[in-house]
């Protein structure tokens, strides 16, 4: 195989940076959505529970690609109307924003379940101890529940992030210039599809390994002070 990138090396590096940016932005949105979803699902109010359940079931039941397409193409008329109302002509969602929203939405739906499991895994006595100390509900959550949830939720979130990183490839379908899109452009010029898609695959593998290493250290840090039962 001829490993000659035909001068597309810098473009692929730029694509990799775009992929990382997209993944991290979607991660931020997804974590917020997941936390809100989990809070809704574990709240004592029935309508909130339904809302959280509806969100996670609906989003998880529909393919990620469909969300990407729906948010990119489906919001055009909506954004037009919004643009008219705000007096900004030609207002539209660009591919990056659509990608972040779609992938964040999907990540959030799965993260809802991860966070919910983590909330339920925290002994009830901790919350009651907080109540007995006279802490407010918000404070109990931010000072007692959230720091403990993190350790339990981290492995699940790590898996989800790995999935998210691979799903960023889907955003190439709406034309965002990340790894896949740059590879496609390189293929049309060089007529070497296997070479360039293999290079893309290797870049994704590298990113996965990087994320796995990061997760290993974060899990190790989060688990300090906890004895491992099976070692």
């Amino acid at each position: 195989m001829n490993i000659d990138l035909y001068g597309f090396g810098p473009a692929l590096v730029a694509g990799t940076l775009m992929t990382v940016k997209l993944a991290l932005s979607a991660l931020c949105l997804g974590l917020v959505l997941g936390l809100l979803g989990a809070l809704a699902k574990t709240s004592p109010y029935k309508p909130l529970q339904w809302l959280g359940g509806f969100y996670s079931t609906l989003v998880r039941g529909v393919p990620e690609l469909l969300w990407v397409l729906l948010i990119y193409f489906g919001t055009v008329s909506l954004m037009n109307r919004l643009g008219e109302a705000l007096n900004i002509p030609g207002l539209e969602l660009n591919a990056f924003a659509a990608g972040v929203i779609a992938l964040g939405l999907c990540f959030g739906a799965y993260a809802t379940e991860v966070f919910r499991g983590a909330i339920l895994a925290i002994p009830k006595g901790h919350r009651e101890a907080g109540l007995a100390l006279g802490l407010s509900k918000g404070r109990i959550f931010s000072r007692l529940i959230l720091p403990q949830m993190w350790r339990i939720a981290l492995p699940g979130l790590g898996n989800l992030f790995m999935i998210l990183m691979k799903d960023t490839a889907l955003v190439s379908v709406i034309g965002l210039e990340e790894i896949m899109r740059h590879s496609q452009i390189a293929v049309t010029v060089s007529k070497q599809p296997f070479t360039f898609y293999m290079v893309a695959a290797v870049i994704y593998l590298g990113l996965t390994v990087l994320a796995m290493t990061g997760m290993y250290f974060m899990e190790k840090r989060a688990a300090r002070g906890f004895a491992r039962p099976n070692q």
Partner: protein
Amino acid sequence: MNWEVIIKWLPRLAQGATLTLELVTIAVIAGLILAIPLGIARSSRHWYVRALPFGYIFFFRGTPLLVQLFLVYYGLAQFDAVRNSAFWPYLRDPFWCTVLTMTLHTAAYIAEILRGALQAIPRGEIEAARALGMSRAKALFYIMLPRAARIGLPAYSNEVILMLKASALASTVTLLELTGMARTIIARTYLPVEIFFAAGLFYLVISFLLVQAFKQLERWLRVDACQGR
């Protein structure tokens, strides 16, 4: 929401849904068959037996399905040897390329599920089988695999749902499955919200039915009865 348009195009979407189901069914069954030797080899005690399935699983789980699909559909044509081979009529066809890629992809995930299940079998049960005079192969086929099937079934049902959603990628190599059909209809009607909404409903209904079917299968295989170890 323009309901008339949705109802008008429902038959075409249903046609796309059958292709989606076809892709998923072939992929998850062929993937399972391929995953059994892979999973067994992956949980071997010898490193040289483990190495090959490890590399395979690492590659297919570490790269996006879209990259794998493009590698097979567009990439293989780069080699004259492939173009001149007897498989070319199949490897040129988007349907067979998608089926092949999805099978290879899901096999890696199922092999990992199978490995986890094989390792979760209580040691005493395998020792009991060996103590009764069963050979290694016999213990594997009569004790370990049926046991692993029950342990791994819930994870396998998750994988089937994930493959249902992954099949949407087939639309990027011109296949007219549910998503591809929706995109074609939108190109004609310019109504993305309505048509994608209808396609999404199809996916929801299919995944709901799959979940129910697997619940029945779990009851039939008495998965819950095996959980008390």
